[in-house]
């Protein structure tokens, strides 16, 4: 036995080794990842922001929606939803792959790596990829003139918080999935799409019928969008609500991670 093997410690940094492996994997998809990171915001801004925006602004006059141009109003919501979508993609596929398709989580778990470390590693790697997406998106919004205030850069972290909250919950849910055939479509159509549409993304939540407003209240996207609008154009919001949004997102993030840790460990030792 060589010295290194004899002296090595049991992986304290296990999660980081998983991150390293995930990066190697993502690197194979680098052109797709970068293309998506750039094309997604450009297309959205052109079609919805500029296209619909010019209609809205023409009808309402400049400053018609929440006192700002439509594009400015829309920007924080688009940023947060891009973060959510990125985080979801990057936790669901590796998790299905790890437990079902290639079963490589079981390979990781036959080393000193624990279930918690695998979950955490997949999660951190997903957020790193999400951060790339968010930064690119943010700069494109900046160039488009949709970020008028000096605090707008903080909206990136709010978007990350939304991605983190949604990502951790999805990490848990995906780790429960036994039959994936229906799962991805169901998540996309029944959860992500409605939340995207009903979270005060395209118009203020308050202009929706009261009966539909609770969809926004439970949606990380709405909470992040509210915070984002406060930061990017000074959308008026009480100090209490800032606290509520922040606590909602961080609690969801922590809950998702806790449940994911437990289920990863359980499923690997079944």
């Amino acid at each position, binding site marked *: 036995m060589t010295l290194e093997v004899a002296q090595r410690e*049991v992986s304290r940094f296990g999660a980081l080794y998983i991150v*390293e492996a995930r990066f190697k994997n993502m690197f194979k998809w680098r052109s797709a990842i970068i293309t998506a990171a750039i094309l997604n915001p450009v297309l959205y801004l052109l079609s919805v922001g500029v296209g619909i925006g010019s209609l809205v602004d023409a009808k309402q006059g400049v400053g018609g929606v929440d006192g700002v141009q439509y594009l400015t109003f829309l920007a924080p919501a688009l940023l947060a939803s891009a973060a959510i979508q990125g985080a979801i993609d990057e936790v669901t596929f590796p998790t299905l792959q790890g437990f079902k398709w*290639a079963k*490589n989580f*079981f390979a*990781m778990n036959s*080393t000193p790596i624990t279930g918690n470390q695998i979950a955490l590693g997949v999660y951190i790697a997903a957020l790193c990829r999400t951060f790339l997406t968010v930064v690119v998106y943010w700069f494109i919004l900046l160039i488009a003139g949709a970020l008028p205030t000096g605090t707008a850069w903080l909206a990136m972290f709010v978007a990350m918080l939304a991605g983190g909250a949604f990502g951790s919950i999805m990490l848990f849910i995906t780790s429960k999935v036994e039959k994936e055939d229906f799962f991805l479509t169901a998540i996309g159509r029944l959860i992500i799409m409605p939340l995207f549409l009903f979270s005060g993304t395209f118009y203020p939540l308050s202009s929706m019928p009261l009966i539909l407003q609770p969809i926004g209240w439970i949606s990380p996207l709405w909470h992040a969008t509210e915070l984002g609008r406060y930061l990017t154009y000074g959308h008026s919001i009480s100090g209490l609500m800032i606290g509520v949004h922040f606590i909602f997102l961080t609690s969801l993030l922590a809950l998702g991670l806790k449940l994911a840790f437990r289920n990863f460990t359980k499923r690997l030792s079944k």
Partner: protein
Amino acid sequence: MTSLISARSLTKTYGDFVAVDQINFEVRKGESFGLLGPNGAGKSTIMRMIGATLQRSSGELAVLGKDPEKFGPQIRAHLGVVPQQDNLDSELTVRENLYIYGRYFGLSKKFLTPKIQELLEFAQLEEKRDVKVEALSGGMKRRLTIARALVSEPEILMLDEPTTGLDPQARHILWDRLFRLKEMGVTLLLTTHFMDEAEQLCQRLIVMDKGKIMAEDSPAELIRKYVTKEVLELRFGSDKNSLYVDELRQKCDRIEQLPDRILLYTNDGETLLTEIVGSGLHPITSLVRRSSLEDVFLRLTGRSLIE
């Protein structure tokens, strides 16, 4: 000799089903130890309990002197695991698979670079080093999985059904690699339902059926203890076999009637065959062979290993 694995009344139940039933065994340093039995005998369950990824229901288990339930990561740091189903990262190359797996053990790039080269040579995969795993043949994937398990210089190499699903040529290449490891003094623990594999690779083995140990010894000793030296296989045609069983029973130590043939256990097959033909019986085919672990299993359980 120190024992690396020791099981006492080891039991695993799933509800009412007893997968592993109060078994005892020891695996000593440097030996190659086998678990032989049909599918569903509980072999993989035992492997996962030893590999510290499955909790036992009762009994005691010590791996490298530690309890796998309390010291999972510490024990796994010194095991090399080759699972029944390959679980390589199919999108990464051969070399990348070895590298990331080594990283999971916390090994440095400096250590891994020469190690990977050595393992590629050992697994005869040097030419495939930069090929994506999804493009490899079944035999190559198995060799890579074994190489991967060796990257951390484990104290015990655990192989669950290492050659199941491989063609004969790939099996022989794999056996040759495993035999080299055995010669190098690596402790091997393997499960198999192929008796020829067990005979080739195991110094000592336990024969398992339905979660229980039926016998434990070296392949040669098991054959000596439970069956005769030779077997005479006779075929009279499928519907006629049973007509002659009683008559033949008188002439040998033991007789087994299988659906397509009759097995007569004797220490001298040729002499017995001459005697049978002399007494006026004319089998369609006859074959004298040495007894194998298959016969031991048949003797112990009344069933064949592969059904």
